[in-house]
């Protein structure tokens, strides 16, 4: 049985100012197995983030339903950890307190919180920064804390909404490797939304390509590159082959988006 089951999930946004309603996401089906690393790739505005937000419980589907381990998703919860594109660390809390946020909400004793937090701070390479406030950290460091904060909660599935989108290329590549190593270590299930083709192929075992708006799954690819993946995999012929294929798919959709906006 799959861990996360998305069946017939569609989203229509209500009309604004007597305009027409907006169909953001056509009814979509997706089965996510345990330990899957699925990237959702699509042009901007294709509804891929909407789908992720519905899985997180932050938005409600107009049609269909999401089930996690058989139980329907009714709202947000600690069993689905999320990392956002914007920097969402709580600015009034230190790195340590940010990572403990969810644990404290669970009512875990402070000593145990600190122990778990220390482990994840070490995993994202931020030992020594426990007492820093988010504003004292670079963008990449903030997203590493956000990742540690989501992981500390031990969610069943990790949802990432273009988490490295605002970072520069070098930092982004390092973050991808970091996330991949953490995923290989913890055997998490991951849904990762991105518009970056390299990123989508490098990390995923399955890559889902979305069509232009109104979004639907256009194509699904098994990424058969072996794990553990080293960054050098990006220069292998197989990677280039997959990249060519995905680029072709996504380019057609981006063109459609561009034409719609004209």
């Amino acid at each position, binding site marked *: 049985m799959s861990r996360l089951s998305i069946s017939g999930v569609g989203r229509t946004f209500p009309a604004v100012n007597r305009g027409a309603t907006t169909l953001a996401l056509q009814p979509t089906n997706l089965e996510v197995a345990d330990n899957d690393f699925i990237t959702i790739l699509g042009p901007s505005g294709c509804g891929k983030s909407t789908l992720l937000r519905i899985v*997180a*419980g*932050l938005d409600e589907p107009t049609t269909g339903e999401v089930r996690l381990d058989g139980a329907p998703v009714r*709202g*947000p*919860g*600690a069993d*689905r*950890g*999320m990392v*956002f594109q*914007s920097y*969402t660390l*709580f*600015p*009034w*809390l230190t790195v340590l307190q940010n990572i403990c*946020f*969810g644990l404290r*909400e*669970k009512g875990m004793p402070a000593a145990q919180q600190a122990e778990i937090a220390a482990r994840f701070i070490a995993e994202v390479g931020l030992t020594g920064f426990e007492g820093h*406030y988010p*504003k*004292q950290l670079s963008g990449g460091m903030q997203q590493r804390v*956000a990742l540690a*904060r*989501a992981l500390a*909660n031990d969610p069943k599935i990790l*949802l990432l909404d273009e988490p490295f989108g605002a970072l520069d290329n070098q930092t982004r590549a390092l973050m991808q490797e970091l996330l991949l190593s953490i995923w290989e270590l913890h055997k998490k299930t991951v849904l990762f939304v991105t518009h970056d083709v390299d990123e989508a192929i490098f990390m995923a075992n399955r890559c889902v390509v979305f069509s232009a708006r109104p979004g639907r799954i256009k194509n699904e690819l098994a990424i058969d590159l072996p794990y553990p993946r080293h960054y050098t995999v990006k220069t292998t012929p197989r990677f280039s082959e997959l990249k060519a294929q995905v680029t072709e798919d996504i380019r057609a959709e981006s063109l459609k988006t561009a034409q719609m906006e004209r």
Partner: protein
Amino acid sequence: MKPLREVAPGPRLALGVLFFILFFAAWAAATLGGFVSKTFLADPITMVRSGWTLLAEQGFAKDIGFTVWRVLGGFVLAALIAVPLGVLMGAYKPVEAFFEPFVSFARYLPASAFIPLLILWAGIGEAQKLSVIFLGSFFQLVLMIAVQVGATRRDLVEAAYTLGANDWGIVKRVLIPFSAPQVAETLRLVLGWAWTYVIVAELIGASAGIGHMITDSQALLATDQIIFGIITIGVIGLLSDLAFKRLNRGLFRWAAL
């Protein structure tokens, strides 16, 4: 000078002090130079001298004490109710929909116009003074705090939800800490306004207080005492403002980063 370029702390202080010096110099020149009649405006030296007499011989310190106690009493009472209500209004839209129209209406009611009514209801004792301050600050506080709490970044709220926070957890651990620095700034601002109400309240039906001293002095045409009273209020206001600012900066170090 370049637009928005910061000025160093030393020159900044010097510029601020310079204006005070120029202000007093112009005042001294106008009065001591004989350009303005003493009946209308006392000169700075007479003002300082009669201020000393007030403090040393006429128990003006007691008046100051009364005024400070009224401002703080009325303001603290208003804040004790306004802060929780503002937080609830900011957090829960139905609560806001219920109170907001009335509060918006009430904040335009001039507190000083209620003084005759308040004398009728509460007499001329302390209750009446405190109610004027309360009326003057409460509605302003509620409305501004509600707006600030309601303006909490949505992505932080969503992040907290995905970390397992429940609705009350969102209020307690996201909305309140996020808006706390601005709420503290609002309290500081409104405390300043409370000072203007207290004098008006004391002009009518008071037996002590800075405002009371000013009314008495008016009967004697003692412009030196009136000006000393006004300056006293200014100085106390400035000091309490500085103390409040320092407290806020200490409490919310993260906001200044």
